[in-house]
C-alpha cells in the first residue's frame, strides 16, 4: 500500500516523494510542499481532517483528500 501524508500519526515525519500534478494545487507547492522535503504532522482536527502540517518549516493545514494525494516515505 502506498503511504501518504494522510497516514501520518501525530508527531510522525516523512519525506515527500512524487505526487500527481493534477491533484495537488500549485499553491501547496509554492508553500514548500515539494518532493524531497520533510513533512511532519503537527495536529489534526476531529476525524483527522483537516491536517495541520509542518512542511520544511512552513506551517499549513490541508484537507485529508489532498493529503491522500501526497506520497511519502516514513522516517522511523
Amino acid at each position, binding site marked *: 500500500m502506498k503511504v501518504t501524508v494522510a497516514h501520518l500519526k501525530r508527531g510522525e515525519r516523512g519525506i515527500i516523494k512524487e505526487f500527481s*500534478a*493534477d491533484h495537488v*494545487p*500549485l*499553491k*501547496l*507547492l*509554492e*508553500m*514548500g510542499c*515539494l*518532493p524531497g522535503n520533510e513533512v511532519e504532522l*503537527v*495536529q489534526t*482536527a*476531529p*476525524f483527522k*481532517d*483537516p491536517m*495541520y502540517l509542518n512542511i*520544511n*518549516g*512552513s*506551517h*499549513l*493545514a*490541508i*484537507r485529508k*483528500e*489532498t493529503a491522500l494525494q501526497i506520497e511519502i516515505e516514513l522516517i522511523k
Partner: protein
Amino acid sequence: MTGKQINVALIGNPNTGKTSVFNQLTGLNQKVGNYPGITVEKKEGVCKLPRGLKAHILDLPGTYSLNASSLDENVVIELLLNKNDKDYPDVAVVVSDVENLKRNLLLFTQIKDLGIPTILVINMADRMERKGISLDVDILEERLNTKIALVSARKRTGIDKLKELIINHRNISSEPCVNASVIDPDYFGNLRKAFPKQSIYKLWLVITQDVNFGNINRNEIDKTSGFNTKSNSELKRLQQKETIHRYQFINGALKEALSVDKNAAKDLRSRLDRVLTHKVWGYVIFFAILLLIFQAIYDWSSYPMDLIDSTFASLSELTKANLPEGVFTSLIAEGIVPGLGGIVIFIPQIAFLFLFISILEETGYMSRVVFLMDRIMRRFGLSGKSVVPLVSGTACAIPAVMATRNIENWKERLITILVVPFTTCSARLPVYLIIIALVIPDETFLGFNLQGLMLMFLYLLGFGTAILSAWILNGILKIKNKSYFVIEMPNYKVPLLKNIGINVIEKTKSFVFGAGKIILAISIILWVLASYGPGDNFNNAEEIVRGNYTEQSIPTEEIEQEIASYKLKHSYIGIMGRGIEPVVAPLGYDWKIGIAIISSFAAREVFVGTLATIYSVGSDEEETIKNRMAAETNPILGGPLFTLASGVSLLLFYAFAMQCMSTLAIVQKETNSWKWPILQLVIMSVFAYLVALIAFQFLK
C-alpha cells in the same frame, strides 16, 4: 533628482508583517480606497524620506506568488505587468518574515524576474536570536543580486536603512535572478521568436494567468503562429516545474547565508497549539471567545449607543428651537439629523466587532478557528474559511461578503456569499429591540427574561437559517470544481496596537460613509414624500380637520395631531402606503408599517426612523415612538395594531427578508453577475413573506 515622488510597491506573503512595515513607513499618512471597478481595498500612503524626498507607497494585497488565485492577487500582477499604470513602481519592496525566508523568497524571485528593481526586507529580525537563526546578509545580497534591509517593524529598527535604500533605488540591479525558460527550452525559445520585443517572463505570466494586461492579449499569443500552444494541464505541469526550479535556486542561495539552530527555538507555537487546536478545548475556547464578542457588541456598546441616541434627539430639538421656522429647518431637524443619528449609532458596534476580528487575525488565532471548523462547515457546503464571514455578518453583511475572498473553492465561496445575509446584522437590531419591547412581555420564565430569550432566539434563527440554506444550496447547485483548501498556520504574535487602531478606524470609516450615504438619502426622500402631497386633501388639511371639530372643548394639541395624521394620510407616502396595504394586511400590518418595510429594502435600519417620521414624532426618542406604536389600531381587525401575532410576524419578516441595497450591490460585484443578487432578493423576500403570513394567521 527631480521633485517627483518615488513610486514604491510593497509586496509580500500574508503574515509577514507587511502592513506593519507600511504603517511604519507612512504613519497615519495613508488612505484606503478601492481599485477602480472592483472592491479590492487599495491602501496607499506617503512616506517622508531624508533630504526632502518623498515616496508614494502602495501596499499591495498579500500574495504567496504571482500565480493568482483570487481577485486580490490579480491586482498585484496587473499592476506589475502594466508599465503605463500610474502606480507602476520605480522600486518594489518585498517584505519577508525571517522565520519563513525560504518560502517568502519564491515571490521575491518572481518579482525580480519582471525586471523591476527589488529591495528585500527581512522583517521580524528581532526574533532571530530567540529562534536560533543566523543570517549572512552580505552573502545573501550577493546571491540574490539585491539590497537587503533587516527590519523589525515591531521594535522600529531598520526602517531608516530601508528608506535609504528606497532613495538610492537606482543603484539596485534590475537583472532577473532565475531563468525560468530552462523548464522548457523549446517552448520558451519559440515564444521568444514570436515576440522578440517582449520580456519572456511577462509573456509567460500572461499565458498562465487570467489577467487583463494592456498591450498583450492572451488570445493573441495563442493565435500567433510559430509555436505550439499548450493545454491547461501541460501549462500547470510547467508551472510546477517553474516552482521547483525556483526553490532549487533559493535553496542554493540560502545554503551558505542562513543557518538555523533548531534546538534554540523555544516553541511557544506548539504549546499554544496543543490547547487552542485541541479536539475539545479548542472548541470550548472558540465558543467562549464568541460569547465574549457578542457580549461586547450587544452589552458594552449599549452605553455609547444610548449616549449617541440621546445626543441626536436633543440635537434635533436644538435645531428646531434655534433656527427660524420653515421648510429648511424641518428638513434638517426631521430628515437629516435623525438620518445621521441612524448611521452614527452603529459606530460602537461596528468598531467593537472590527476590534475583535483584527485582534484575532493579528494574533494568528483566526487560522486556528478555520482549521477547527473546516470539517463541520464542509458538511453544509461551506468551508472553514466561511466562519470569518459568518461572524462578521453579525455586524454587517458588506464586509462579510468581502471577507469570503480567500475561500479558494468557488462553490463554497458562492454559498457563503448567498447565506451570509441571514445572519443577524446590526441593522436588524433596532427593529428587533423595538418590536420585542412592544409585543413580548417583560417577564421572567425559569429565571430568564422573556425579551432577552426572544432576542437570543432570533440570533440563533439567523445562524440556523444560514447553515440550513447552505446545506440546501449545496444539494442544488451543480458546480463542478476541484475542491482544495490550503491555509497557512502563522506564528502567534502579540498584536500591535498601531495596526489594530488603524484597521478599526479605517473599517469603521468606510462603513459609516458607505452605508451612511444611502441612509441619509433615504431619510431625505422619505421626509419629502411625507411632507408633501397632491390635491386639496393634503393642502387644505387644516380646514378640513378643523371643520370636523366645531366644539371648543377639544384641546388644540389633539387637533394639531389630528391635522398632522390627516396630512400624512394624504401625502405622497400615504397614498403609496395605502396602495400596498392589501399586500401587507394579511401579515397583520397597516400601511405605515408597509411603508417602513418598503423603505427598509434600502437598508433595514431605516425602519425605526421611517416610523418616527411617519408618526410625526419629530425626534428619534424611542420611548415616544414606542408609545405611539402601542396606541395604533389595526384598520381592518380593530384592536391594537401591534399584537403578539403581528409583532412575531414582523420579526420573522425582518429575520429572513433581503432588505439591503448595499449588500445586493456588493454581491453583484463579488459574483460578477446579476443572477445571484436577484435570486437572493427574490427567494429570501418571498420566503420571509410566507413565513410572516403563516405566523400571523396561526397566532392571531
